[in-house]
């Protein structure tokens, strides 16, 4: 019997192992592994893989933004400066009000089905966006920005258009600001014959402008395979150089446990948001796996947004700056960062990320402001030695010295400083508004009643921020604040974010997203229309910081008619930042630590700290820079 079993089992096992061995050189979608760049998807599995019509909600994280669509203007994410992609130069401004523009596009660009891309495609997209605006769910940006029926075709490669308001940000609204644009051009020759059916058209597989075309996609939403076009040179960004991989596979490798194992087995090349623990485990088993930087904080810290604690500033007692400052000074961010992300973070005291792009625009000019900042009682809250102190703590915890930055690299790695951890000052500030500790050791309200505080944090859909949130709550509880961290799913998260009535404190990033000189892109939502009562369930429409300060509103309004990047414009942005800090209107925490480990087995020359040519994110449209810069290792 045993012999029979062996006879039966042997061929089955041989076949199975043969398949496994075969998969070492061919991917399981049938492409040569050496010619395929494999990327973990941003969102895991997609539930709408065949939704590829960008006029509606489409399957966002399968490479369409990075490899498929073409943009009028793209963002150089190494400098924060726009450059023309489909456009032939920057928009020409036709009036003093900055509302009329002439745009030229590059001739010789073709859709993936061989039809030439012209102005007709752009104008059809605008036409359709307005014509069916009550039926389409992804055209809101153009509708709110462009003046209806204002566009005119000059010739096949030139058109003119008007905006509803002065539009100094024309190229970053109609083009890319950070990760992509909300204005996505569709092929007229595919869409127009459908008439009114465009509102339900799925457009799968999409005809695209990038140098890749969709070869296949999984109807179950796990993967999408792109193949380089033979005519890639006449694609939207064929002028950047030849894309290196013949195939790009976006695929979900499942839960972090299986992803880590698959990464160790060299099954894919770029991961997304793997936790620091899993990265360390994978690196221990596969030396080809690398983080963004060889020294702490290891990961890319140049995301457009920063994490902060967003406060319902209208709700007592958070309406008092003393209370908000007391919270900031009672937060032991060094311990929070060490316990939740192993010290792999870069703090920022201003309400925006501290990156090589925003540093010279905001952090460097405001360094004196931070150092000299004085509270009403004469106390100086800023700690410029936050970074060096953190390094000392990490040393005592056994982190090898060669993995810690030194000299100028400390500021680059761990920022220019953060707030002091000073419980005595925190207590003093609270006492000044009548808040004292009760018999249970927790602070009570000024009237002596209990003061339970709710901190909303993400559930496991954002594991790193979830851990940070728990750690913050722990730090505050130790300081005497009766804080409970409440983890919520993504849907409820949005409701808490959008309404005053549901929020006390929330760790968030949505309005601390100043990426470059164009700070209005995120702070334009700070206006009086978006102020609601403290218990309102009405949507805040972007004012998630719950700002009520008329001086800030005034600065935002004045800046609408200033050229982006001009001195007065930047001065206004910096003044808003200082006002937000002076009132501690948001407790900005840190840059978002973006963990994107790469695997050098099949591809190399990824964008890294010591070889930085673009944001290394595989889910930003600037991923195209990675596509043209990586090199095959030759491993088959």
């Amino acid at each position, binding site marked *: 019997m045993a012999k029979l079993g062996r006879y039966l089992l042997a061929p089955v096992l041989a076949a199975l192992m043969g398949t496994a061995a075969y998969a070492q050189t061919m991917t*399981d979608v049938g492409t040569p592994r050496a010619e395929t760049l494999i990327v973990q998807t941003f969102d895991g599995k997609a539930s709408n893989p065949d939704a590829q019509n960008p006029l509606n909600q489409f399957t966002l994280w399968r490479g369409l933004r990075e490899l498929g669509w073409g943009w009028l203007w793209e963002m150089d994410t190494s400098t924060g400066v726009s450059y023309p992609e489909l456009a032939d130069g920057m928009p020409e401004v036709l009036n003093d009000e900055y509302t009329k523009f002439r745009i030229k596009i590059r001739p010789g660009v073709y859709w993936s089905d061989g039809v030439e891309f012209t102005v007709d495609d752009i104008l059809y997209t605008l036409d359709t966006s307005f014509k069916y605006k009550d039926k389409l769910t992804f055209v809101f940006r153009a509708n709110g920005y462009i003046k209806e029926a204002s566009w005119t075709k000059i010739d096949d490669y030139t058109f003119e258009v008007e905006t509803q308001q002065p539009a100094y940000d024309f190229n970053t609204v109609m083009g890319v600001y950070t990760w992509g644009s909300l204005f996505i051009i569709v092929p007229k020759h595919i869409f127009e014959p459908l008439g009114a059916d465009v509102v339900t058209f799925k457009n799968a597989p999409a005809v695209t402008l990038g140098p890749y075309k969709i070869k296949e996609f999984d109807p179950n939403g796990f993967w999408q395979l792109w193949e380089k076009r033979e005519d890639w040179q006449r694609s939207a960004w064929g002028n950047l150089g030849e894309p290196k991989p013949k195939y790009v596979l976006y695929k979900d490798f499942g839960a972090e446990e299986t992803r880590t194992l698959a990464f160790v087995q060299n099954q894919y090349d770029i991961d997304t948001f793997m936790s620091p623990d899993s990265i360390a485990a994978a690196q221990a088993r596969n030396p080809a796996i690398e983080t963004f930087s060889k020294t702490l904080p290891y990961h890319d810290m140049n995301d457009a947004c920063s994490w902060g604690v967003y406060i319902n500033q209208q709700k007592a007692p958070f309406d008092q700056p003393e209370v908000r400052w007391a919270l900031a000074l009672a937060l032991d961010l060094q311990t929070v960062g060490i316990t939740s992300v192993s010290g792999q973070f870069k703090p920022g005291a201003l309400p925006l990320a501290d990156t090589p792009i925003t540093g010279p625009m905001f952090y460097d000019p405001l360094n004196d402001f931070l150092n000299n900042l004085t509270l009403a009682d004469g106390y100086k809250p800023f700690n410029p030695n936050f970074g060096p102190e953190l390094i000392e703590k990490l040393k005592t915890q056994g982190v090898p010295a060669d993995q810690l930055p030194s000299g100028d690299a400390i500021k680059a790695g761990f920022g220019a400083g953060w707030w002091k951890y000073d419980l005595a000052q925190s207590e003093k500030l609270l006492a000044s508004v009548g808040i004292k500790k009760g018999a249970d050791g927790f602070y009570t309200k000024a009237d002596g009643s209990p003061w339970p505080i709710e901190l909303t944090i993400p559930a496991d859909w954002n594991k790193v921020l979830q851990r940070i949130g728990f750690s913050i709550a722990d730090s505050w509880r130790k300081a005497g604040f009766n804080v409970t961290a409440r983890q919520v799913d993504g849907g409820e998260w949005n409701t808490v974010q959008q309404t005053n009535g549901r929020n006390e404190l929330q760790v968030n990033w949505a309005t601390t997203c100043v990426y470059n000189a164009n700070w209005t892109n995120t702070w334009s939502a700070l206006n009086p229309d978006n102020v609601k009562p403290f218990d309102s369930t009405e949507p805040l429409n972007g004012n998630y910081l719950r700002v009520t300060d008329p001086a800030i509103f005034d600065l935002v309004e004045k800046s609408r008619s200033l050229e982006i990047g001009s001195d007065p414009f930047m001065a206004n942005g910096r003044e808003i930042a200082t006002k937000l800090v002076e009132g501690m209107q948001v407790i900005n925490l840190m840059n978002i630590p973006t963990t994107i480990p790469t695997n050098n087995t099949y591809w190399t020359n990824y964008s890294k700290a010591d070889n930085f040519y673009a944001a290394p994110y595989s889910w930003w449209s600037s991923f195209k820079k990675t596509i043209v810069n990586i090199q095959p290792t030759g491993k088959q």
Partner: protein
Amino acid sequence: MGVLQYVAKRLGQYFAVLFVGLTITFLIPRLLPTNPIDGYIGQIQARANGALSGNDIALLRANLEELYGLKGDVLTQYLSFLKRVIFQFDFGPSFTYYPQPVSQIVFTALPYTIGLLMVSTLIAWFLGNVVGLVAGYFHTKRAASILEVVGIMLYPIPYYILAVTVILVLSYLIPIFPLAPSFPVGQMTLQKAGMIIYNSLLPAITLILAGFGWNILSMKALAVATTEEPYVTYSRLKGATNWTRMTGYVFRNAMLPQVTALALSLGTVFSGALLTEMLFSYPGIGLILRTAASSADYNVLYGAITISIIAVATAGLVIDLIYPLLDPRIRHR
């Protein structure tokens, strides 16, 4: 009670259960602390970096209410829901993935869920019951204790630990099964069908192992008790063989509660296996349900849960109808 009366009564209960189930299904998602429109606006507002004006958002909100069918009071929405579901079996579009119809989302995933869970549930039930029967019938023998130990060892292992262990052993240490397999697309061929089966083997093995232990233990307990029944002793005294006594007397009587458990397990197959899908990158309805719950995608929740309710209720009905065939005592009542 006549057969027709019996069947009519059961059918009446069946439709009552469906109606109550549909009503609860309609109400529960609306108690979620999440609003699908807020969710969508939050997403796009984030993508616009907060740059949408209040007017843009108000317009979008009004459009979405119309498109999602959320205009009007809850009673009107409820009646419209019943009408659409009962007469057209139409759950409308997904909110999160508008205008994707719910039926498409659900029915793309359902064959994978049913294929994997149905087969693994049946195999686990069959193997577990056979082993449990032998262990129970021969409970005085040492070999039977060993079989029981298998059940005792497997049953308490948390599914997550079991699954990760199976993955580690069979996909990493001895990599005979793929980690995160890609399921083939396009027109089905014999080779693609083979690929799907091969890719499904690892989750199936895990599910069988997970279900196997409980079936062993429960059948063993039933078999031990049944073996002691006077009619089994009587059959032994009449000279019936071990095989006949075990299968014809012990198994036939012990299987009744097991069949009920099987039917209910098969009914719950339709709600998917979330952990399995997440750990094995397996397509199915579990992950869809989870995403829909977190984003308050009412229509997807309605679609997936309604199918599950129908499946469980139908399984109960089928069991009620075939029970008299399995147990003559019920026929005579």
